[in-house]
């Protein structure tokens, strides 16, 4: 009987699972400008520091292990044909110790690395309040940047120096990934979702943008430039572009500029 009873209750449990009440809307990535602070060091500078630190960490671990191995490999060569190994069996306590102590050490290092990584992660993901927002649309195989005043550029992202830049990104067709080498930052773009990244253009200059998610035959030619300009220069440029647009406004209104936000419905910004 008891087997049947157990089977019965198992079956009941199994059956009730699908009736679990509907949880909240699935989680979406929502940029949260406003909540966060000003960062004193731009993320990409912090990135280089952390990367070096991590490299030191793993180099020490790796070199230690390699040296020990190399020493053993050298010191314990076979000396005569029927020599056998002399490794002692560990006592139960020793066996346990050889587990707990290494695990504790590894764990300590992991937690240290995690804490460091988390700090930088927050810096990458929490957007400063005064960020200047630009929309990015990826399509096979080019980038479109849309400025707040609906000015658009293709393949050239012009930004003012010393201002945090927030990119809200979406894709018209397949997954792409917006990578700026100078700012050590990558984030994918895809249809149906809006993603974001931010960076701090601290120096005037021209930097490379490449696509980092495979998107077909044109993947390796889907690159462009980030052009960092002095603030006044940028403002002047944006204004002249806007003027050019309003001059040809009659044509433009017929074609309807479709912004990335327009075609990705209510799921996007959490609203």
């Amino acid at each position, binding site marked *: 009987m008891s087997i049947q009873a157990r089977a019965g209750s198992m079956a009941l449990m199994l059956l009730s699972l699908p009736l679990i009440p509907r949880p909240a809307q699935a989680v979406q990535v929502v940029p949260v400008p406003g909540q966060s602070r000003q960062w004193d060091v731009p993320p990409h500078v912090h990135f280089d520091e952390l990367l070096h630190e991590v490299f030191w960490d793993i180099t020490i671990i790796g070199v230690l292990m390699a040296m020990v191995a190399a020493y053993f490999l050298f010191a*314990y060569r076979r*000396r005569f044909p029927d020599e056998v*190994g002399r490794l002692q069996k*560990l006592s139960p306590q020793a066996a346990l110790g*050889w587990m707990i102590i290494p695990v504790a050490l590894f764990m300590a290092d992991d937690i240290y*690395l995690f804490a460091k990584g988390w700090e930088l992660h927050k810096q990458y993901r929490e957007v400063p309040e005064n960020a200047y927002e630009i929309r990015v649309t990826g399509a096979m195989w080019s980038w479109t940047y849309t400025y707040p005043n609906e000015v658009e550029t293709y393949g050239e992202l012009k930004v003012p120096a010393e201002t945090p830049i927030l990119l809200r990104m979406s894709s018209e067709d397949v997954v792409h*990934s917006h990578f700026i080498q100078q700012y050590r930052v990558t984030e*994918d773009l895809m*249809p149906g979702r809006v993603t974001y990244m931010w960076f701090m253009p601290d120096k005037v200059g021209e930097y490379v943008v490449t696509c980092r998610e495979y998107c077909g035959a044109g993947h390796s030619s889907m690159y462009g430039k980030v052009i960092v300009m002095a603030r006044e220069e940028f403002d002047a440029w944006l204004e002249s572009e806007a003027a050019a647009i309003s001059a040809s406004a009659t044509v433009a209104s017929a074609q309807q500029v479709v912004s990335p936000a327009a075609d990705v419905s209510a799921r996007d910004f959490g609203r």
Partner: protein
Amino acid sequence: MGQPKTWKEWVFTLDHKIIGIFYLAASLVSFLVAGTSAALMRIELGSLGPTLTEDAGVYNLWLTMHGAVMILGFQIPALLGFFANWVVPIMIGAKDMAFPRVNALSVWLLWSGILLALCNLIVPDSFNGMWTGYPPYSETDFAGNTALYSLIIIVLGISSVFGAVNLACTVMFMRARGIGWYQLNMTVWCVFTANIMQLIFVPVLAASVLLLSLDKYLGFGFYDPGQGGDVLLYQNLFWFYSHPAVYVVLLPFLGISFDIIATFARNHIFNYKVAVWATLAFIPVSSDVWVHHAFVAGLPNWLRTMQTFTTLMISLPFGLLMLSMVMTLYKGSIEYRTPMHWIVGMFFMLIIGATTGIPNALSAIDYGISDSYVIMSHFHYVMAISGAMAIFGGIYYYFPKLTGRMYSEAMGKISAWLFFIGMNVVMGPLYFIGIEGMPRRYYDYQMFPQFESMHALATVGVAITTIGVLIMLYSWLHGMFRGEKATANPWQSQSLEFTHTDVIPGPGNFPTPPVMPEGWSPYSYDKTGAKGGSEARR
């Protein structure tokens, strides 16, 4: 007894050893096909601008074939096919696998999958969506024949599920009398664990690619936002399998390495029980880290942070295994035959590869290096080179049992070091240009002309590797037909497949079913009556 005589005994075989040989054949064919495409890719990348082909699509086809065939056609069949089939039943004293017919079915399904994969080279619309096959790209017409991709993976998936069920039953039910769970070779434990992982995770992969074809060809909308689906669902399902898959590859090749090291150092495995439990720990630990392949994919921040932590935790069991491996050398009596050379190379590559996993694991660092050559170099060190070196070392190790003859030591060692050096010359420079920004899956790199010299260097590395591979193949062919006759236990191993079988094990493996005495262990070198070094010396 030797090998079967008639063609029927070969083709219709139900014997696990012959099936193992068919797996090995499949995996070597795959290695050559995928390796040739690697060489073509490297030549293409060796200089800026078009070199071999003007068409990026051709490059993408090579790369897709290279990634998919190397993993699904070369490494998994070699490890979970050849070693699992040929070695494991003998190691546990079984006469065959639990379900010989199912075993034969598995290998023919594998061959079907490989033939399908080769068809990708001849169909007019070859699939070029990479081994990861992300939608929406793979659901567009640009990607080519997505059905082929899905079906290859489903067929191979079914093959591995059958294989895994079979092997798990074999290890659970067919151990010889006197062989308990703690008396198993590390190879057995690692293959067993890897197969349990296959059982848990393969179906998710099969489901994820099945939905891909349902979407593309039958009008379903699982991954299509326009129909209420979600692009990211695929990435989550795919990596839920494909992260554990890297340990499905890792564990068996570590297992073989453990056994080879134990044999050539004539030592037992250091802290054996902890090593066993560390192996098993990979099952839970690896099930909750898949997001580290999608750190930049737009998933919620809490998920990225959480899985950064869980990913770092993999270093615990991994570290314990590597510790056991190093310490097995301690006070050993190490003899340097060819298999040991390959395994030593494997170990140093593994150190580089595994530790370079750590920067990737930190989501913040990954933002700067994701999908760059850093990642590419990481997994070639940890999986491609280490794995290949362990597999080739393992093949040399069992060569006498497979062919009844010895290979040439000189050629074996030279090929090991050419492979090792060559692959370092390929992957070392690529790591550094990865940090400088070289993206993966690029047919050309106009925007980074400064990388040309490093790319060229890497291409030279492939030439060295290729020579190594050719020497290795030649040493096998030569050994097979011309080699000296081997003895049943050329390495004086204590493991059952050497101590209790013929030179070439025949049907049923053992002349009489083995019964192991109390306290037997595959690593009991100190009990052989041979002199321990210490007594002999002092």
